């Protein structure tokens, strides 16, 4: 393979942001080298590729780094258009999809993390907020097969899909009942898992639960 076309992904196994990139690359059928990063001792290559944020995931294409998972997804979509794009061609529909991908980015990870890290009043507040988020996503999904519309497994779906392996963790720690609060979203999650790209990428929810547990202990959570 020529150097110019070599694709590498610096990532961390449980990172939902990294998983987005893996799902996207699999959907496009792009071959790449996966490189697991040790987050407690970040490699020189990572620090050089993403000197600003020093974070994974970083996609390296022909040696050139692309950072920030949503930006990486759009880059993958533009470089390897393939049979179907992650985004609709109509500008208004694209803007709509970008809005919802941005919503997922802003809300799900941060609030979801509080569900397993916090306790007491802070946990109650996080629960309330998370239910709001679920209901908002449920309303946006509606009766569609995927968020992007039609049969297209698109940007919003890829942005949200990795969090489905955290659903068990969120429920176990916080008592939020996803099936009750957002049944359509739960069915959407099952449809996502039927896709090869998602099934091969996402870890077992129990492994995610153990990971969260170990982090919680390490950082002194109750």
């Amino acid at each position, binding site marked *: 393979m020529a150097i110019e076309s070599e694709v590498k992904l610096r990532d961390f196994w449980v990172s939902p942001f990294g998983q987005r990139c893996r799902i996207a690359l699999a959907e496009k059928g792009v071959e790449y080298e996966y490189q697991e990063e040790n987050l407690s001792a970040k490699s020189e290559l990572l620090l050089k590729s993403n000197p*600003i944020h020093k974070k994974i995931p970083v996609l390296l294409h022909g040696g050139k780094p692309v950072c920030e998972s949503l930006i990486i997804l759009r880059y993958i979509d533009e470089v390897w258009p393939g049979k179907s794009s992650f985004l609709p061609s109509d500008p208004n529909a694209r803007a709509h999809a970008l809005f919802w991908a*941005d919503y997922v980015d802003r809300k799900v990870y941060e609030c979801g993390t509080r569900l397993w890290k916090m306790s007491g009043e802070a946990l109650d507040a996080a629960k309330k907020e998370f239910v709001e988020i679920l209901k908002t996503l449920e309303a946006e999904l509606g009766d569609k097969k995927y968020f992007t519309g039609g049969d297209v497994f698109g940007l919003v779906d890829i942005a949200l899909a990795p969090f489905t392996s955290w659903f068990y963790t969120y429920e176990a720690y916080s008592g939020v009942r996803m099936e009750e609060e957002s049944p359509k979203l739960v069915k959407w999650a099952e449809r996502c898992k039927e896709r090869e790209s998602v099934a091969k990428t996402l870890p077992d929810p129990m492994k995610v639960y153990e990971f969260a547990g170990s982090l919680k202990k390490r950082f002194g959570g109750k």
Partner: protein
Amino acid sequence: MAVEEEVKLIGGWESAYVARVRTALNLKGIPYEFLEEAFGKKSDLLLKSNPVHKKIPVLLHAGKPICESLIIIEYIDEMWHASGPPILPSDPYERATARLWAAYIDEKLSPTIGLFLRESNEESKKGAKDQIFVALLQLEEAFVESSKGKSFFGGDNIGFVDIVLGSCIAWLKAMDKFAGIKFLDEEKIPRLVEWAECFCSASVSRDVVPQTEVVVELSKAILAFRRVVVVAPSSPNDDVHFMLLLSSHVIDEMLIVVFSFTII
């Protein structure tokens, strides 16, 4: 939706995020109706058009809303691709780089300017000040790389990053007069200082970037009284009349709207 259909923009003159969209519309020569939100109030139209975040700016094209300033700018670029030079580059790697710097500005710079303005705690203020300097130094490097010796991040023409960073200039300049801190220091960030002058003199920015004096008065009033009701002028170049409410019944919402630059 066709390019000739009606364009409206829900916003406020004081909001940097709104200023960005206005710059983009100007760049493409798109006529639009500016629907100014009254301070301290969110119109029914805004709440209906952006029910999720309830924030300005919102672009209405043939009545359909588009929200989030960066998304709106990309929409304008795609919809009116035939008018004027492109806002985003065509090369995917350069596009990713432009998007990354825009995201960086929105994460590290824009909200920190707002934090600096409203913080009374000395330590937090110093932390915000330091972060602004770090971000500007980082952007100076980014400018040298992106511009390749030309006037703008976008090269010969104003591009995506120019529009996004350009919206911060009025506030950075104001802080020199208001807080005595020279963020746009030609010794520390010479290329960015040059760039800021180029950007402000460009015709597309002229009616959009508020005059420094106006921004200074606004900042002073906000900090001095913490609750301000502003009778918004129709253009940033009019005199700003302040009606100061010292009552403790003034809602926090008003502070948030005035600081729309920081939160919206």
